[in-house]
């Protein structure tokens, strides 16, 4: 047997440990643990699987497990619903893989000048993309971003109700519900869902007018919506919200921003979303980063609880410097005062989120530029509409909200007599991941699936899906 020394632990060499213990002035490591009472100790070795100490065996072991997964690379994937398959430019991977950004963490502006500049550029690019003045560093996910800004709106307006479009993604709504707290909590925000038009998906104005009041802190819609349709009445919703003194919050898919209106153009006060489509791998849903953007108005800036970097000058002429903006009074890092009491200004919690992905997204936006976003938006519109046209031609298959959609659309199978679960199981045999089954999430839409088509799908891919579906449904 080889002598055990750990490659990740330089001082695991017994002679070094002994030298150090001697310098410290103890006989053994046990003495260093004298503060932990015996009754709190685990009196046995941890019972965990036998390790693979050498790198080769470890890699082989992990790959043997990972190889049980099927990938969207080898299969034809039409799943979306908040995590989307887009092309990831090689440069994004290259920069995110640089060990400097990968392994940095708490270094401040002088240690990590470059990190602060990338953060500032991410904020600037993202704000420009969604048409706002300010964007902050990521929170965990889109749902988290939406919940946090609903709470921001509640603090800004002093009101305790929020109107949310009923077509919001169920997973996001669940995250929002937790952030708005149960009714028994004193700071609970009441979520009222606003109905939608079952034919178009659009916001139901009668219901909005019925539900909005002087208690409404905010109206939240998603555009394009979770179900893929484009909400065309942004301006009207915004007007009603503003007349009633409420904030208007819009959730967007940033990849649409080269072709769809910036939410500020139709009156949004705050914009949220996920930057995952901007160069971040899906990673089974691990590639998430929620964003928050708004005007530079102080009432928004000071209520935003996520981290922000400001540009500033240094003592050197013509040199940019960077600094945290409101780290100690705006974010949870400064939640307490000197006597341990809560600082009155303290907001929501933040922490280690997904900043490496912000680096990837910054690179993506720089690579794409304005024209890249326009072109990718157009490609997605054309390819998804091509799919809509072909799918609509299949007997018994109906595309809901099709004419007015971006990237995703609802495919209804009611008239085929087959349910989505079975269809998708069969599609798997053809190496196709069919659209997400939403029959339980939106029972009013019947036996339906949410399909996603992006720039990565070729004409042949779309036709293959259509042909396989025809074959499957005819059996």
């Amino acid at each position: 047997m080889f002598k055990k020394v750990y490659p990740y632990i330089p001082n695991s060499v017994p002679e070094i440990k002994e030298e150090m213990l001697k310098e410290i002035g103890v006989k053994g490591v046990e003495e260093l643990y004298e503060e932990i009472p015996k009754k709190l100790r685990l009196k046995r070795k941890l019972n965990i699987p036998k390790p693979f100490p050498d790198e080769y065996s470890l890699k082989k072991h992990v790959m043997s497990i990972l190889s049980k997964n099927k990938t969207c690379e080898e299969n034809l994937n039409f799943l979306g619903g908040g995590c989307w398959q887009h092309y990831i430019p090689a440069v994004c991977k290259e920069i995110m893989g640089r060990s400097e950004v990968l392994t940095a963490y708490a270094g401040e502006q002088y240690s990590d000048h470059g990190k602060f500049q990338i953060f500032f550029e991410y904020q600037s690019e993202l704000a420009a993309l969604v048409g706002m003045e300010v964007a902050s560093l990521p929170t965990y996910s889109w749902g988290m971003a939406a919940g946090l800004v609903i709470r921001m709106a509640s603090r800004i307006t002093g009101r305790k109700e929020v109107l949310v479009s009923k077509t919001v993604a169920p997973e996001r709504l669940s995250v929002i519900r937790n952030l708005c707290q149960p009714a028994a909590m004193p700071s609970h925000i009441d979520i009222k869902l606003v109905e939608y038009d079952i034919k178009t998906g659009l916001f139901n104005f009668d219901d909005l007018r019925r539900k909005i009041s002087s208690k409404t802190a905010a109206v939240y819609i998603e555009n394009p919506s979770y179900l893929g349709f484009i909400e065309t009445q942004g301006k009207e919703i915004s007007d009603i919200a503003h007349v009633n003194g409420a904030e208007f919050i819009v959730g967007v898919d940033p990849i649409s921003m080269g072709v769809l209106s910036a939410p500020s153009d139709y009156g949004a006060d705050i914009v949220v979303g996920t930057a995952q489509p901007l160069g971040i791998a899906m990673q089974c849903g691990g590639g998430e980063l929620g964003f928050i953007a708004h005007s530079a108005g102080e009432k928004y800036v000071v209520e935003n609880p996520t981290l922000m970097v400001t540009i500033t000058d240094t003592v050197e002429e013509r040199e940019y410097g960077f600094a945290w903006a409101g780290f100690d009074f705006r974010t949870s890092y400064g939640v307490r005062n000197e006597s341990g009491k809560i600082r009155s200004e303290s907001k929501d919690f933040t922490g280690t989120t997904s900043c490496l992905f912000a680096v990837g997204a910054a690179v993506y936006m720089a690579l794409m530029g304005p024209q890249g976003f326009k072109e990718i938006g157009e490609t997605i519109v054309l390819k998804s509409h091509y799919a809509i046209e072909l799918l609509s031609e299949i007997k018994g298959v109906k595309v809901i909200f099709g004419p007015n959609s971006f990237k995703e659309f609802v495919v209804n199978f009611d008239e085929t007599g087959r349910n989505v679960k079975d269809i998708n199981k069969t599609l798997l045999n053809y190496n196709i991941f069919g659209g997400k089954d939403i029959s339980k999430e939106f029972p009013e839409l019947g036996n339906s699936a949410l399909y996603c088509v992006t720039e990565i799908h070729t004409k042949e891919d779309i036709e293959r899906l259509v042909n396989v579906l025809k074959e499957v449904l005819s059996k």
Partner: protein
Amino acid sequence: MKKEVNLRKYHAPVWNEPIIMEIGRKGQRGILVPEAEEEIRKKLDDAESYISANMRRRELPKLPELAQPQVVRHYIHLTQEILGMDETIDISSGTCTMKYSPKVNEILAGMPQMADVHPFQDEDTIQGILEIIYKLDLICREISGMDYFTFQPGGGSQAIYTNACLLRAYYESKGELAQRDEVITTIFSHPVDTASPRTAGFKVISLMPNTKGYPDLDSLKSICSERTAGLFITNPEDTGIFNPGVQEFVNAVHEVGGLCFYDQANLNGIMGIARAREAGFDACHFNLHKTFSSPHGSLGPGCGAYGVKEELAKFLPVPVVTFNSEKYHLEYDKPSSIGKVREFLGNIEVVLKAYAWIMSMGAEGLLETAHVAVINNNYLEKLLLAIPGITKPYAEGKRRLDQVRYSFEKLKEDTGVGTIDVMNRMVDFGIVNYFPSHVPWIVSEPMTPEPCESYSKEDIEYWAAVIRQVSKEAYSNPEIVKTAPHNSSSHKIINAETIDEHPQLWALSWNAYLKKKRVGEENVKIKK
């Protein structure tokens, strides 16, 4: 005989890199995107016609326009101006456990079988990922003594928030939610132990330390009541001091019907030695990006692995991964669940890296990790306390575990050089600035290094030698310290002390900066 440490003649790269919006020319492209095929374009109308007129983007976003080589050079320059853990001896970032992140794990996480997988795929097609989640769950159960884990929280703060959400569900199920509205923490626990329960709607009371630096049992008992929902604490605390009476703390809270949460963001020094279960806790969390080696990624992605005892399991976020000895399954049907704290399953790539790291170490390796982390810390302490100006407040004569909160109060009194000055000066020697302390500073002029197991004896000696050098300078030439950094990628910023507090000094985007500059120039013109 002590070896003489030769300090390196370090200088950071200085690129004076422009903001990306200042580079490039209109029309340049960094990448091209796939175009819809000709047949599609022939068959369909223009893309624009599928978007109603009022919803078309009026003016394209003002993004940079650069060719690819210039984009790459820009970002390479900026990354060179960062001291990552791979580049520097990051003993500096105490409480963060800046350990080495094995490169092989990055390769594994980059495999298409991990990276190119969609979270809504049929569970038959993600059996590998579910297996890794399930197996790490079992390992975390053993390390903590808890009964079930979830990896949905995207970081430690979110795990603590998840715990607060579970408390709500637990008390709601008992009909006590309206009554139990108080959470208790200690001032030397992470500030998010205050902030997260507040987001969840609780009032939070922070216990101050007693004169010896320990949380005080009598103070705790005096605030425990039928209103107490829970205790959220770390141990050892940020000071590195282990509270040997932690079980009595837990008992006091249990006696009034509260639940106890162990914030184990940093478990490094006691892994395999003391567990949450033996101390009586009901729940705990581990930061997989700290103790379990996943890289910190310049502030994430992380994962707050959150574990609970059986009694709380039904409230965990959905889905839960189960195993029936043949197949792994995603269980959504949990009526008492709090629902979701984050979309999808969590940062699964982080889960994978933590699993791979543990599987390279084994039980003995985890214990070795804890032992060496504690040896390293005690060795560093020995070196640091021999340096003029440094003290170790509180718990005199008691050992610290994985980290120590030191004070430069004496240095400040003697020389006028404070901890922020020392911290900035460190960068001139190629060391990432150290972490002083969370605010408020209970220990004055604090410094909190954590020499975890990744650092060699020589690394520790170098780090201490830098502190020794700065202390020497403070006594002989304080100006050089106060005006530091001198060898960094940028110089001292103006308004360094006040900028964080004053929104009027901020420009949070390039656009906002240009606007501010224009207004500034206008004002100058008007004055003239």
